[in-house]
Every structure is written in structure tokens, then in C-alpha cells.
């Protein structure tokens, strides 16, 4: 029988002002297996943690239940406390009575108290069945691969190489540089791009640690953190190599407008990228009209591409700077010049005579062709009237969209992408340059449209993250993986087909066909567990008996309530 300790947190007023914590503690004391129940003003404080640790030792607790806030933020903290007190960190169960109880039932104190009791009963039921887990270890091949040779990828690769890590750069085009090959100057500081790319390229070309594969794409990818097998098609030949970590830097691309604003019909209607080309050639127009948010932030493509406003500001200023008399108008829906430098750019543009006009999604500008240029009719929301303007060119600021072949890359790497085709990081704040799949990292516009500075920062961050397992030589494998009870397994194959990660295979153990989980490849989602008809597949920390016990606890509680 497990000795369970229950610690209920007041969280100051956050829980304590709604849930009757003392009452809940009394209730917890009489639950099966509970050896001790106590409360803390702030369990996560030094003092709170100290008292939990003391109680673990004094009461010889096997399992710890903390009823407080959300495991999504505080679980690591309490797990560490358990470990410090000599309890395996997987013998810890978190019950959320703040976000899921006191905060959302603030006016129903009694009901909230009752619910907290039930939640704790469920938590204790699960905790009583927890088993210690050992995190596995796998060795890491000290080689990295960077997919994409744009600014983000090159930065990451150069950083890895500078740390002495052998690195493969896989670029689909015939030369490195990515989108920057078509952009000569970048904002907000008007830096020339050519030296930037050249320096990175030279760094890599000089290093014996770097292998650059041009006109290449990945055709096969297998394995898991520390030990990926990659096969690439490099021109006509194929090459195989093994790496320990992978950085995805496949970038994005500019959306080619589809039949809007006369694009393709009126020759003076051009894209931002075309303008970049013209400006790089030294030809600044006498007048220009920029239209922002073309084919984005609208039904079908809701997101904001983030960088277009700044690009427009940069190019508007480039036009003005080369031709101070130029008439530049920016038709926008909101100007997103976030950050202090970009804000300065916006101010400078305004002050230099660039006129900004706001249009609504429901009344987009109308373009008509005209001799030496185009005319635009737009409903100005500020003046509340239609205004006609004309310009030598009309520049359509279209969004960065996801790279071609993202779906294939996602499939190969077994990483998720969102509905817009951009890759999805493990956690937007806590793990921004990692994927949920261990050993695979993300940077640059493949994740979200990003400025060059952001690409560089993310490239460096991804390289730093990727270097951790490689430099360490070993990785800890998450213990919430699936495991097979060989004796039970009926080899029906459901799990093999259900696994999103192809982490399960059929094998033969002692003459018996059964499923086998590759723990390093398993992400612990539990899809296979639900597909297994006879409970042979279990997810550590979420076994069917544990969750079954939670359900039982709730059933018991509601039956008792019905009796009363």
C-alpha cells in the first residue's frame, strides 16, 4: 500500500478565498492510502516546498499529491522538490484546483469546495497507482543537419560549425542565401545583405566541418534524437548520412497575388520582391502606391505576415531617399511597425511625406490602368470619402506563405505544421525553437514570417539548442512513453498503424509475435494505448488503471452524493 501525502495550497486568496481548504484537507485525510494531508499558504514558495519536503521525510511518503495550480507551469518545481526529498519525480500527481476550480467558480464557494474534494479524490486514486519511472538515455551522433540555406539556416550552420560540430546544410536551390539573394538592403538599419550572406558562406566553405549540399532534398528520413538517418537526393546522386540533431530552416516565400488589384494585367502593378529588384538596380519610381495586407488577414488566410509593413516602410523610404520629390502613398489596414527601431522608421516615413491611408477589408482599393502608371480609388476611413490617387507603380505587399513542400518535410520529420503550413513549435513561449519531436529544431520563417534579425536570433538559438545533445553526447528520453506488455500483446497490429511517429513495430520475442516500442522515437501521445484492444499497451504515467481509478473515484463520489 502506497503512503500518499496530499498538500493543498491556499495560493493566498486565489484558492483559499473560494475553496474551504481546511475542509478539503480533512476530507483528503480519510481517503484510502492517504497517510497525511496538509495545507500551505503558498506551496510553491521556498517555505511551502520546504514543508512538503519535510513532510515527505517525516511521514515516509511514497507518493505526493499537490492540489494547487496548473501542472503546465508548476509541475517541474514540485517534481524537483520530490526528488530532493528522495521520492522519484514520477511519483507526483498534480491536482488543479485553481485554474480549474476556484478561479472559475468564484461565486459558488460551496460547490467549488465539493468539486475540489472530488478532484483530489481523483488525484489520490491515480497517485496510489503511480510507479517510479526511469528516464532512458541514448547516445548522440555528433553531427547536425540544417535544412535550408537561407539566412536562418546559414546562421545556425555557421554557429554549429564554429562550435566544432560537423554540419550538413541541405539547400534545394543551386546557391545559398535564400530569399536574401533577391533583397539587397534590409531594414530598419538599411544594411546591405550581400556581405552578410557572403561572410556566412565563406565561414562554412572554409570549414572542413561543414558539408554543403546544393540542389538537394531529403528523400528519406528515419531514426530519432541522437541517431537520425538521412538520405538526400543531391542533383542526380543520392547521399546517406547520420546526424544527431536536425534544424529546420526551410523559410517561407512571397505570395504571388492571384488576379487581384489588376496584378498580371496591369504591368505597373508589381510585388514587393519585384520592387526590391528594381530598387537594387537603382531605378526608383517618381511615385508609388503600396497596398498592404494583400490576400491576407482575410477569410481563408487570417494571419498577419508581420514583416510586410516594415518592408514597405523600408522601401518607401528608399524611394524617398533616392528621389525626395517622389510621391509615396501606403494604403493599409493597420501599420504593424512593432519595436522601437521600426517605429522610428514609421515616423521617419511620415515625416518624409509618405502618406498613410487606411482602408477597410470590405472596401478594398480599386485599381485601373492608366498611361504611365495606374490610378487607385480608395475609400479613406478617416475622411469618410472616396479618394483617387495615381502612381507610377502600385506595389502589392503580399504575405510570406509557407514554403513549398512543407507538408512533405513535416511528414518526413514527423513534426506538426499549423493550418497555414507553418511549422508548430513545442511551446510558443517555453520552447520556441524546438519541436515536440526531440532532436528537431526550428528557426526562421519556416515557423512564422520573420525579419532577418529574428531569423538570425532564432538561427543562433536553434544552433545553441541543437548543440546541447550533441555536446552532451547523451540524451535523456522522456519517461512518458508507451510500453508493451509482451505477455498480453495479441499482435493485432493496431498500435503500429495508429502511431503518428512510426515508433512501433512488430517483432518476435521468445517466439511470440508482439509489438515493440522504440522509446527514443515515442513521443508519449498515447494514441496506441487507445488503439490497443486489450490493454497490452500502456502509457507510463497515464496507465489505464490509473485513469480508470480516477474515473472510479468520480463515480464513487457521485454515487455517494446521490445517496445523500
Amino acid at each position, binding site marked *: 500500500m502506497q503512503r500518499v501525502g496530499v498538500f493543498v495550497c491556499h495560493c493566498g486568496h486565489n484558492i483559499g478565498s473560494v475553496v474551504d481548504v481546511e475542509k478539503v484537507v480533512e476530507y483528503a485525510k480519510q481517503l484510502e492510502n492517504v497517510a497525511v494531508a496538509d495545507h500551505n499558504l503558498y506551496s510553491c514558495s521556498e517555505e511551502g516546498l520546504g514543508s512538503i519536503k519535510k513532510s515527505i521525510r517525516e511521514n515516509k511518503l511514497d507518493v505526493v499529491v499537490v492540489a494547487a495550480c496548473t501542472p503546465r507551469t508548476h509541475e517541474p518545481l514540485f517534481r524537483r522538490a520530490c526528488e530532493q526529498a528522495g521520492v522519484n519525480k514520477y511519483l507526483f500527481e498534480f491536482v488543479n484546483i485553481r485554474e480549474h476550480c476556484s478561479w472559475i*467558480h468564484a461565486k459558488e464557494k460551496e460547490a*467549488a469546495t465539493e468539486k475540489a474534494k472530488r478532484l483530489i479524490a481523483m488525484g489520490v486514486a491515480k497517485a496510489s497507482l503511480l510507479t517510479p519511472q526511469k528516464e532512458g538515455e541514448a547516445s548522440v551522433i555528433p553531427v547536425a543537419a540544417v535544412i535550408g540555406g537561407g539566412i536562418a539556416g546559414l546562421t545556425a550552420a555557421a554557429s554549429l560549425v564554429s562550435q566544432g560540430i560537423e554540419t550538413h546544410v541541405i539547400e534545394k536551390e543551386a546557391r545559398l542565401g535564400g530569399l536574401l539573394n533577391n533583397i539587397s538592403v534590409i531594414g530598419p538599419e538599411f544594411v546591405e545583405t550581400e556581405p552578410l550572406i557572403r561572410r556566412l558562406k565563406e565561414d562554412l566553405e572554409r570549414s572542413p566541418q561543414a558539408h554543403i549540399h546544393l540542389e538537394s532534398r531529403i528523400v528519406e528520413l528515419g531514426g530519432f534524437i541522437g541517431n537520425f538517418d538521412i538520405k538526400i537526393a543531391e542533383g542526380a546522386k543520392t547521399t546517406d548520412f547520420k546526424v544527431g540533431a536536425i534544424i529546420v530552416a526551410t523559410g517561407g516565400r512571397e505570395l504571388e497575388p492571384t488576379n487581384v488589384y489588376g496584378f498580371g494585367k496591369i504591368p505597373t502593378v508589381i510585388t514587393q520582391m519585384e520592387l526590391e529588384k528594381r530598387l537594387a538596380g537603382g531605378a526608383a519610381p517618381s511615385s508609388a502606391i503600396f497596398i498592404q495586407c494583400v490576400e491576407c488577414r482575410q477569410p481563408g488566410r487570417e494571419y498577419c505576415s508581420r514583416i510586410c509593413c516594415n518592408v514597405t516602410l523600408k522601401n518607401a523610404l528608399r524611394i524617398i531617399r533616392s528621389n525626395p520629390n517622389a510621391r509615396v502613398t501606403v494604403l493599409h489596414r493597420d501599420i504593424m511597425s512593432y519595436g522601437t527601431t521600426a517605429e522610428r522608421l514609421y515616423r521617419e516615413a511620415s515625416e518624409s511625406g509618405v502618406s498613410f491611408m487606411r482602408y477597410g477589408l470590405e472596401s478594398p482599393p480599386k485599381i485601373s490602368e492608366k498611361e504611365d502608371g495606374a490610378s487607385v480609388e480608395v475609400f479613406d476611413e478617416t475622411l469618410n470619402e472616396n479618394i483617387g490617387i495615381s502612381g507610377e507603380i502600385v506595389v502589392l505587399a503580399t504575405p510570406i506563405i509557407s514554403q513549398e513542400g512543407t507538408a512533405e518535410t513535416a511528414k518526413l520529420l514527423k513534426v506538426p505544421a499549423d493550418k497555414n503550413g507553418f511549422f*508548430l513549435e513545442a511551446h510558443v513561449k517555453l520552447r520556441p525553437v524546438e519541436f515536440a519531436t526531440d532532436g528537431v529544431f526550428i528557426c526562421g520563417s519556416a515557423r512564422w514570417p520573420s525579419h532577418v534579425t529574428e531569423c538570425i536570433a532564432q538561427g543562433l538559438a536553434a544552433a545553441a539548442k541543437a548543440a546541447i545533445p550533441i555536446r552532451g553526447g547523451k540524451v535523456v528520453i522522456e519517461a512518458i512513453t508507451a510500453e508493451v506488455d509482451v505477455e498480453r500483446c495479441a499482435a493485432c497490429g493496431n498500435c503500429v498503424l495508429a502511431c503518428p511517429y512510426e515508433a512501433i513495430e512488430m517483432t518476435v520475442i521468445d517466439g511470440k509475435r508482439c509489438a515493440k516500442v522504440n522509446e527514443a522515437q515515442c513521443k508519449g501521445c498515447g494514441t496506441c494505448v487507445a488503439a490497443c484492444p486489450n490493454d497490452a499497451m500502456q502509457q507510463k504515467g497515464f496507465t489505464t488503471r490509473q485513469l480508470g481509478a480516477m474515473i472510479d473515484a468520480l463515480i464513487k463520489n457521485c454515487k455517494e452524493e446521490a445517496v445523500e
Partner: protein
Amino acid sequence: MTDFKPSILAFCCNWCSYAGADLAGVSRLQMPPNVHVIRVMCSASVKPEYVIKAVTQGIDGVLVLGCHIGDCHYLTGNHRTAKRIPLLQKILDEAGIDSRRIKLDWVSAAEGEKYQKVVTEFVEEIRRLGPNPLREVRF
């Protein structure tokens, strides 16, 4: 029974719907206190057996909440959920258990308000349906 307090179980995936529920909490969005969340890593790990276990023993309703299709932390995990639960609902209907007692929905980490809406509406729905008849049935 005028004073019907539904007992409802909710399975929330760690990455989206549980975070969505947390956000609802952080945002102090008020909702009825009948829903008890079990955190799972992915909605795809919710065995239909759990749902069957719960409803056959008198739990009045079960919510299964996951990431939106396409946003699953585990690639296509929730695709399986999206297929299992409707089948389960049909089977329950065949046996005479109202499938409206089971609800599958998607709540992202950013959708605290949606979480509140889903919970509130589901509790109302269960109130309309009344207590689970199997609560009283003895075999």
C-alpha cells in the same frame, strides 16, 4: 429530481484544451462546477473504454477535448479521436444511451472563452437530458 447536479468528466489534452482550460481560469471565466478534468497527453489517448466505463456507471456526461484538427501536438493524433468518438456515440445510441451525453470538441490553448462556452453549453445540455438513466439501473 429538481436538484439535479450533473457529474461530468472531461478529458483534456495537455497541449491545447487543458491549456485552454487554464486560460479560462486565468481569465476568471465563470462556468458551472460540474466538470471534472482528467489531463491526458493527447485526445487520441482517450480510450473509448473510459467513456463507456463512465457512462455505464452513471456519469451524466463526458467531454473529450483536443487540439483543433491540424494543430495536434502529435501530428495526427486527434484524427484518430475524430474517428473514434463518433463511432462510439453511434454504438451508445444503438444501446439506448443518448449519445448527446458524449461530446467531442476542439479547444486551442488560446481559446479560454471557447472552453467556457463548451463547458457551459454541455452542462446545460446534460441538465436538459436529465440524470443518466443507468445511474438507477441495477443489473
